[in-house]
């Protein structure tokens, strides 16, 4: 598929490029970026004056809810949502039903998604059978079936011995482990410990739930040398620990969700279940530290943590409601909003959703040309965006099957106009 | 907004009170003294009853009624009980009640007062005395004595006032223009 994109503002955080240029795509790959490029034969020409072209977003956590939870979301609806958000690569946590702990299930998933032929999916395999934290899965087989790394989703591992053995086993193959830092005994609350949860009388989770688990993970990792990706960091103290670990040269990477990046426990208001998350929303101090961590490279990436929940899951008292919110369509806008709010250079901010998360995937073992960047020879996975267009987040504007988002009603910047995967325009906004 | 002009065609309240006093004196002359109880309706009726109690030197205790729990317009205006609660500290059973109010208008207040009294017990009789009768009844209720009866409706709400010396006056509360 050949494409010539003309006169767009080209943003490539990986190469710190920000200029108006043409991009030539041949056979689905980026052939050239420059001025006044000529179209070859059978080349579709698109005039993108006034628009921005950037690498398609790489989302390190998005639940598509298939198999097993189709009443909350289907591959079709959620992949549509991904493309509407300019996301061209996404990582699937293994907590589907059944759990992704067998190669056959991964094959089935890939088969299901092949018919959509759009977004690149990187499933995480379960680290233990059934995610129960007892028996290690056949990581080799799962990797061959297509799993990019191994994870426990949101289920903590109680037995530290199992954790250690899993790290050693993964290390033998050069696999990565993507883990939440959550202590099983301290993580039983529904909101973050603090003055606000105290007022609301909600069972709460102290920051030690994250830091104690993080210390354990880092200490075990130190003796093994496996690459650990810490998922959904949420505390200032946690950022400190990761910063220190990176300074010591440990192979650690981590991400933060758009929810913890923008919201705090005060946003729970009158028990608003749209604010029910795991990890919980924490204090302003924590939010500040997370933003600082993104800026200084301690935190590598921002992810959407897309978790569709249906009405039945949210129309309940706070502690009984299901945690999670829709996010794929919001990843770009909420990243640009953060950049605008804090006066951060756009390329730096966007690297958190393109080059950096791609880097985490490559560190986890992804071969081939660099994802999340506009390298010559890389697949042309691109997002065409109107950075100055504001849109209102609402039931009517969201494509996901779940419209439960804490950002409902907000006017946010950056509207995706079209999404291109391997040089093919796979999604275009109507009108 | 209270307009402090006195209503034009009504005699002064003190004069009306004197007439009321005489009427009540006559009324209770043939009733057994120990069982006659004045009951005033808050707040104007209660003031009148207090003054009557003193001037008649009655032995038996008087009472006051709040009636806010017995009104028929709760659904429309809710509960606004800022005045003191009802106080009936005597046995209503077999009592001869002289119910006292300042202005008789639609009759609904009296209906509520009687309902409340009956929740205390079964009186032997109830007689109603008022200072002014506006004669715009919505219920079949009539006073046994009214010191003055209006021939035509006043221009606003008729209110009884009592100053620091205990002197009564009548005023019209008009809506601000």
């Amino acid at each position, binding site marked *: 598929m050949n494409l010539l994109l003309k006169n767009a503002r080209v943003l490539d955080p990986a190469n710190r490029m920000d200029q108006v240029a043409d991009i030539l795509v041949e056979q689905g790959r980026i052939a050239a970026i420059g001025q006044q490029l000529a179209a070859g034969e059978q080349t579709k020409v698109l005039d993108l004056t006034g628009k921005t072209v950037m690498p398609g977003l790489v989302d390190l956590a998005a639940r598509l809810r298939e198999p097993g939870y189709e009443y909350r979301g289907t591959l079709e609806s959620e992949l549509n949502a991904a493309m509407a958000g300019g996301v061209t690569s996404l990582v699937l946590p293994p907590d589907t039903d059944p759990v992704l702990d067998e190669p056959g299930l991964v094959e089935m998933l890939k088969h299901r998604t092949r018919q959509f032929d759009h977004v690149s999916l990187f499933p995480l395999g379960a680290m233990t059978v059934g995610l129960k934290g007892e028996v290690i899965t056949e990581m080799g087989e799962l990797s061959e079936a297509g799993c990019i790394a191994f994870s426990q989703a949101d289920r903590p591992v109680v037995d530290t011995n199992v954790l250690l053995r899993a790290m050693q086993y993964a290390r033998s193959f050069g696999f990565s482990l993507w883990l939440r830092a959550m202590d099983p005994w301290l993580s039983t609350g529904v909101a973050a*410990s*603090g*003055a*606000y*949860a*105290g*007022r*609301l*009388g*909600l*069972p709460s989770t102290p920051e030690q739930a994250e830091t104690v688990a993080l210390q354990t993970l880092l200490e075990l990792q130190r003796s093994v040398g496996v690459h650990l990706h810490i998922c959904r960091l949420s505390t200032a103290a946690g950022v400190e620990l990761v910063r220190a670990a990176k300074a010591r040269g440990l192979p650690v990477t981590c991400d933060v969700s758009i929810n913890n990046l923008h919201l705090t426990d005060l946003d729970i208001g*009158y*028990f608003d279940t749209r604010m029910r998350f795991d990890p919980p929303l924490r204090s302003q101090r924590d939010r500040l530290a997370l933003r600082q961590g993104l800026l200084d490279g301690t935190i590598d990436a921002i992810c959407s943590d897309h978790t569709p929940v249906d009405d*039945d899951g949210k*129309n*309940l*008292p*706070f*502690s*009984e409601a299901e945690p999670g919110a829709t996010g794929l369509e919001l990843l770009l806008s909420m990243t640009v909003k953060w950049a605008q709010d804090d006066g951060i250079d756009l390329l730096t901010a966007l690297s958190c959703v393109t080059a950096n998360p791609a880097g985490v995937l490559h560190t986890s073992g992804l071969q081939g040309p660099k994802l999340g960047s506009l390298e010559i020879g890389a697949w042309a996975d691109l997002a065409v965006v109107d950075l100055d267009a504001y849109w209102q987040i609402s039931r009517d504007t969201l494509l996901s099957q779940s419209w439960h988002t804490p950002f409902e009603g907000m006017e946010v910047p950056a509207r995706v106009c079209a999404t291109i995967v391997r040089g093919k325009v796979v999604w275009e906004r109507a009108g | 907004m209270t307009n402090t002009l006195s209503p034009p065609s009504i005699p002064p309240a003190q004069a009306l009170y004197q007439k009321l006093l005489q009427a009540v004196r006559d009324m209770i002359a043939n009733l057994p003294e120990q069982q006659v109880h004045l009951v005033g309706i808050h707040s104007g009726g209660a003031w009148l009853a207090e003054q009557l109690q003193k001037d008649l030197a009655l032995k038996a205790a008087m009472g006051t009624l*709040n009636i*806010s*729990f*017995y009104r028929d317009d*709760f*659904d429309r*205006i*809710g*509960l606004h*009980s*800022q005045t*003191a*609660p*009802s*106080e009936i500290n005597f046995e209503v059973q077999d009592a001869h009640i002289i119910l006292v109010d300042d202005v008789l208008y639609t009759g609904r207040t009296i209906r509520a007062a009687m*309902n*409340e009294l009956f*929740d*205390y*017990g079964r009186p032997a009789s109830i007689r109603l005395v008022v200072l002014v009768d506006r004669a715009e009844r919505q219920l079949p209720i009539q006073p046994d004595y009214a010191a003055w009866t209006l021939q035509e409706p006043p221009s606003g709400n008729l209110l009884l006032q009592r100053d620091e010396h205990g002197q009564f006056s009548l005023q019209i509360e008009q809506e601000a223009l």
Partner: protein
Amino acid sequence: MYNPQLNRHGELTHLLTTEGLPRDILTHILDTASTFVPLAARDVKKVPLLRGKSVFNLFFENSTRTRTTFEIAATRLSADVFNLNINASSTSKGETLLDTIANLMAMQADIFVVRHEASGAPFLIAKHVAPDVHVINAGDGRHAHPTQALLDMYTIRHFKKSFSDLTVAIVGDVLHSRVARSNIHALTTLGVAEVRAIGPLTLLPSGLDQMGVKTFTRMEDGLRDADVIIMLRLQNERMRGALLPSSHEYFKHYGLTEKKLAFAKPDVLVMHPGPMNRGVEIESAVADGPHSVILNQVTFGIAVRMAVMSIVAGASA
């Protein structure tokens, strides 16, 4: 600022928590309650104020005492009272909270009195009822028990006349106590001089100082010169949760005895929301002694609940 308890005219239409209720509304409830107190002395204790209205007691958590006082209060207002024992009914068959409410609204309920184990449940219900239906929180999880706080305030006002110079100490399991939270908010709104919380660290939540409360782990220090002591019930489950070693040890350090009472002011009031665990949080000599107003709390509780029901039922739709 949006307050889910007030309608657009600023009238109280639901009572969900004492937090965020303006002082004049709290005072209005106490004043109204005082007009209901004399009713208890009458032969006919009823007034026809809520005649024709239906009050549904929805108790998802068992409580005979609180439910009974609400029942008495509603009956004295001449309302029709319906008690729903939720454990035995459809919710255990999987019906959601909101479905239960929708079904009851279809039966023309006017007032829901709700007790639920999940903090915030009454807020969810209040969001989903019609404008002329009112929700009264009879206790939600650890969050709030506003009628208890109001009757506690009424009791304090009755004996102490004014709130301004008072030092009030709340003793016990503040962490799990909705009574404590509601009392703290009411006391600070009504302007008491000092609110104190006394208990071991395992039973004191974080953020108390942000609520305007001074914390003490030594009871003698916390009780010094206190005007009012509110004792909280200690629940047995706390022993199992690694929060306390034993009730014996708890009584020794945090139980209210005559000896400890001596640290407070000579005319101190001793209060307890009930039911009491004698010998665990309070000794009998104190519970039955001259400082105790525990039984007065119960009497005032009926008048306060009558006041709350009358006020919300009278709010315009």
